[in-house]
């Protein structure tokens, strides 16, 4: 097991390097000049050139890349142009917001998606299957910003059940923290629930067709136990794979949701930074999100080994 972990981490290092370089290049492909924005509307050419020089933006791109990567290696993500604050600090401040949103949405998605998928598979071709598949189709087809707006109109404006925007930190008040998260988290989860339900259904149908399911029934195992013990454990591999992917998508999806619900998270920071051409923040945030995805994938690989005995020994 320790060897597996070490191996996966060693594999992750080149991946992270590539992520860093791509992030940097992507940012420099964007049109727009941060120096112009920082210098202000009234600045003349000389002032802009001065700002550009101060930021090091007049150096060759290769040189800038080298400096950025070298600083990264020392744990220095740079300093924000718009916030006058170290990038790492700005991101870490906002991490709890995005983290809470993604985790709550994940905790809603996983059980709901799995239960719906299993129901659809076990009662295949019945009204239950049709209903679940229809819900899943709606979930994956309707854009979540639109659902978010409808949801705010119904639950915040008309019914007044949940706040329409903002975020209350967990340490201030648990109840209000949850209330501020429930609506955005559910909206964020809808797409993933639909996706997970469809994946679970097809994985389950596949397993229910296997010979060992017939063996279990020939032993006198009840349908419920056959599904829960013999079939479900065999779908776990696929469910775990999809779950990792879903967690990544939830973190990515929070960019839009944070905008709509005015939540001060990493996604919102990213959007603001892009608008302001705040290179260090955009690069730093994207890089950290990239690291998060790589980390999630390592975690998934380790869970495989736990779920499937064949991975453990091979």
């Amino acid at each position, binding site marked *: 097991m320790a060897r597996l972990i070490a191996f996966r981490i060693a594999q992750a290092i080149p991946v992270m390097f590539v992520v860093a370089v791509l992030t940097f290049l992507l940012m420099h492909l964007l049109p727009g000049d941060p120096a112009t924005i920082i210098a202000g509307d009234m600045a003349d050419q000389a002032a802009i050139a001065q700002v550009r020089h101060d930021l090091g933006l007049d150096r060759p791109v290769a040189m800038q890349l080298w400096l950025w990567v070298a600083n990264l290696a020392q744990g220095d993500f740079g300093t924000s142009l718009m916030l006058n604050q170290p990038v790492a600090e700005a991101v870490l401040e906002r991490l709890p917001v995005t983290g809470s949103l993604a985790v709550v949405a994940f905790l809603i998605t996983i059980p709901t998606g799995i239960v719906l998928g299993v129901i659809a598979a076990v009662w295949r*071709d019945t009204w239950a299957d049709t209903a679940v598949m229809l819900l899943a189709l709606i979930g994956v087809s309707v854009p979540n910003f639109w659902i978010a707006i409808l949801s705010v109109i119904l639950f915040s404006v008309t019914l007044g059940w949940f706040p329409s925007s903002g975020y209350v930190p967990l340490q201030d008040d648990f109840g209000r923290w949850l209330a501020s998260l429930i609506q955005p988290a559910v909206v964020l989860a809808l797409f993933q629930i639909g996706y997970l339900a469809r994946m679970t259904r097809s994985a389950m149908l596949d397993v229910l067709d*296997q*010979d*060992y399911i*017939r*063996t*279990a*029934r*020939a*032993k*006198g*195992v*009840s349908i419920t136990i056959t599904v829960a*013990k*013999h079939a479900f*454990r*065999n779908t*776990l591999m696929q469910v775990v794979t999809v779950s990792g992917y879903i967690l990544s998508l939830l973190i990515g999806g929070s960019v839009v949701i944070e905008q709509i619900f005015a939540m001060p998270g990493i996604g919102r920071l990213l959007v603001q930074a892009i608008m302001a051409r705040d290179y260090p923040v955009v690069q730093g945030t994207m890089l950290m999100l990239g690291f998060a995805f790589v980390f999630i994938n390592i975690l998934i690989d380790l869970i495989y080994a736990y*779920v*499937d*005995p*064949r991975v453990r*020994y091979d």
Partner: protein
Amino acid sequence: MLDVANLTVDFRVDTGWIRSVDDVSFSLDAGATLGIVGESGSGKSVTALSLLRLHNDRATRLSGRVSFDGQDLLALPERRMRELRGRDIAMIFQDPMHSLNPVLTIGEQIGETLRIHQGLDRKAAQVAAANLLDMVRIPDATRRVTDYPHQLSGGMRQRVMIAMAIACRPRLLIADEPTTALDVTVQAQILELLRDLREEIGMSVILISHDLGLVAEFAERVIVMYAGELVEDAPARTIFEAPAHPYSEGLLRAIPSADVDTHRLYAIPGRIPDPGNRPPGCNFEPRCSLAQATCAASPPPLDPIAPEHRIRCPIRSAAKEVAE
């Protein structure tokens, strides 16, 4: 003990219902052995699965009577049927690679039968599982109990399947092509094991195979199936030495012999008709060398031609009568 009467199985397909097994009847005494022979698509496995009602309920229609100790299994509520599966009637399958659950230890899978039917706790079931592994001659059984199926060879896996099936000392064991997926040397060992266990436990065995030689060697009585129908039912010796139905003859001729110098292996010409697309008369008529015009006209009946010997071939039945 087991009496199957007019068993008919229909499956639902996109276009309606098709008949897979048609009016099959046979019986089996306690402690006896029966072989069911036929090529793929003959309905032998479908027949076996029907005895335990293991088909998908919603896509299958069963009719006739399967009487086991006087109760009709086809009329039993699912809950009662479940109690009977694995306890009174057990089954082993063709492909031991895929018939074991890959994520559960073999001890867990063998013990499960005992926990369901005899209420053993996890620990006692594990101990019993080790004893059963010993019974099916898996060396080092106590250590093997915690192995997963992928750590075992094909032959070992089939032994595990057998251990699982005999856990509750069933009165009937149905073995559906138990050796087909195995090496020849392993095949012999598995058959020998089945033979020994049958005597030890005193159970009846139904052995299903496409291999007439293997079945005739193992079973006292053999039924031959073709295209969903029973075409010959006779003692194993009779089938092997003097088969009466032309299809049984063909099956026998298709067994390569080491004694006779043959240049070409024999194969019955043509192939088995699809269910739903069977000829109006005798199912075997298109492939039969004895076929006459009457054969294609109407389905032939199953006639007794000797005590304990029935065939579905009017030509041969008539020839037999003339000879007598």
